[in-house]
């Protein structure tokens, strides 16, 4: 579950931006694609240097009839300079899957690497990361939704500005680079123009119809710089099901290293 928090708020890579290149600056001619990429890049740049963080999350699954099922998950995330994050997600409930853990090495280019630890069998299993369009633990979040959102995984197109919940937002489309295995043809994202935080994404399926909407809120700033959401709600319009992620206990720069994200540490997660 990778960089949930970093998540969409942090979309992608680092370009050195000159003042003239900043979105909205007058007098500069750029295409909608260039402007979309610049916004994504700037959002990512603003999250650079967080180092590592841990957080706790409650995932609530709701079906059409209103039945609910909860999972509690702890996450650890390590920023990897020049590449995607490493992350570890550990399930505390439901009790029958307690101790199950996912280890993910996300990459800017190419497939992510993923392992699953099954505590009852003491077994580490490699997982096929091409399953990215598949549901994460029965939720409305696909693996690709909870994975580290690297700039390079999409191409972009700026659509314009919009007001969302009283905030001025950039609206842009993004298209997965991995067209074969992504579950989406297109995403439309809303990022506020002041802090470049993600507020909403609409997901369009392979038939180009609206599949899901993600809304993100209750942002708080950590270390005076890094914004993380308190709530993320994914609604599936085609099935009527939804999943809510409630984030708490963000702790930054806890001293995690590569050694906390290998097969040895995976087997001793608690």
């Amino acid at each position, binding site marked *: 579950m990778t960089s949930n928090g970093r998540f969409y708020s942090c979309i992608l890579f680092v370009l050195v931006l000159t003042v003239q290149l900043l979105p909205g600056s007058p007098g500069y001619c750029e295409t909608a694609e260039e402007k979309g990429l610049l916004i994504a890049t700037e959002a990512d740049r603003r999250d650079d240097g967080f180092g590592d963080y841990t957080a706790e999350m409650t995932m609530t699954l709701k079906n059409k009839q209103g039945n609910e099922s909860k999972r509690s998950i702890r996450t650890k995330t390590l920023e990897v300079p020049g590449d995607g994050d490493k992350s570890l997600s550990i399930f505390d409930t439901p*009790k029958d899957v307690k101790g199950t853990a996912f280890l993910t090495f996300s990459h800017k280019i190419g497939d992510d690497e993923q392992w699953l630890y099954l505590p009852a*069998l003491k077994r580490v299993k490699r997982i096929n*990361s*091409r*399953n990215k369009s598949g549901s994460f633990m029965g939720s409305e979040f696909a693996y690709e939704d909870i994975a580290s959102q690297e700039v390079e995984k999409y191409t972009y197109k700026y659509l314009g500005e919009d007001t969302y919940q009283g905030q001025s937002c950039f609206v842009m489309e993004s298209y997965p680079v991995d067209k074969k295995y992504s579950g989406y043809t297109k995403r439309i994202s809303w990022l506020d123009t002041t802090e470049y935080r993600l507020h909403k994404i609409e997901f369009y399926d392979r038939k180009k119809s609206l599949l899901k909407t993600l809304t993100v809120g209750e942002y708080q700033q950590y270390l005076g710089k890094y914004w993380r959401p308190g709530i993320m709600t994914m609604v599936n319009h085609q099935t009527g099901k939804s999943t809510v992620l409630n984030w708490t206990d963000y702790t930054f720069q806890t001293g995690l290293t590569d050694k906390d994200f290998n097969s040895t540490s995976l087997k*001793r997660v608690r």
Partner: protein
Amino acid sequence: MFAENKHYPLLRFFCIAALILLTSSPENSSALETSGEISGQGSLFFHDGAWDGQERQSAALAAKLEIYHGITDNLQFTFEAFYRVDSQDSERTHGDLRTAEFLYFTNNWEVIIGLSRVFWGATEFVHLVDIINQTDQVEALDGEEKLGQPMVQVAIPNDWGVVEGFIMPLFRERTFPGEKGRFRSPVAVDSTLAVYENGDDQHHTDLALRYSTTLADADLGIYYFAGTARDPVLLLTFDNNHRPILFPYYEQIGQSGLDIQMVAGEWLFKAEALYRTGQSRSYAASTFGFEYSLVGIYNTMMNLGLIGEYVFDDRDQRWLPTIYDNDIMAGLRLSVNDMDDSTVLIGIIRDIHYGSTILGIESSRRIGDSMRINLDASFFIDIDREDPAFSLAQDDFVTIELTWYW
């Protein structure tokens, strides 16, 4: 209560050590976690037993207690005890300390002292190279339940892989179904009559060294094990009443093993291989195959995995028989991805030489927040008389198990 009396000194040491640790740091009580499970199991067999004393149904109750104590940031104690009561088979009424280990770790190495469990392997059907822990054969037909192994384990992770060393001072004997148990040989095994090739008996110190790493899209491990074979040869003798009985004969072996898991697109390739010396003639064995994933089948959230595997084992079949000598396996794994994590696994194992076929079904779903129901069944079809699986030919069964987690 526990499998062998000889373990009492060790058990006592761990129980006392655990009590001291658990009571010593009350200010740290948040680092103490207890959990457990209680399960009820009912099995129905479709045929009368092939061997005397076997019944057509059985019921069992099992409990598991887990205690975890984070003593310091780098020192953990884990305790996992298990006990089962079986209505039919007195040998299946048994308990075990699955885990009673201290784990100390730094950034550069870790050490485990105590009873622990270790799994090595990659494939789904046959677990050839998994050798550290003894199989708790009465627990499950698939051999995936293991007994806690006393050990000192040192692991040194590096950028280039992980080196692990194991010193195992005490051997655990395999459990076998009793006279009234199903899934047994025509003549029952009396595990109390175990004989060892080595004069140290259970106290022979077994050693293992393993190196594992990730190379590009492949996870691989190689190891060497020197010590007491986990799978004994079964030899015939007569008990005091002059009735035939089998006894386990544990030999000293050397075994090299290899396991690989590799990702290639939507394929996962898996392979295991071993070379063993010390039991009749030296032999090699290998199992390998694939799992292909279909995501979101029929526009649902369901995933379907297609599994194909093959196993070949060149051992001396007259000395150490295996049912997996030359078999092909196929499986379907359905993950419904619903709230209750419903899963169904259907597998077929077919002996290429004899044509004997085993069909197995494992299905499971959660009920509410803290219960799970499992429905398992196996069918033994056209089992050839010459096939070592013939002793199971009448054991078609269905088992329902309800587990409550707390």
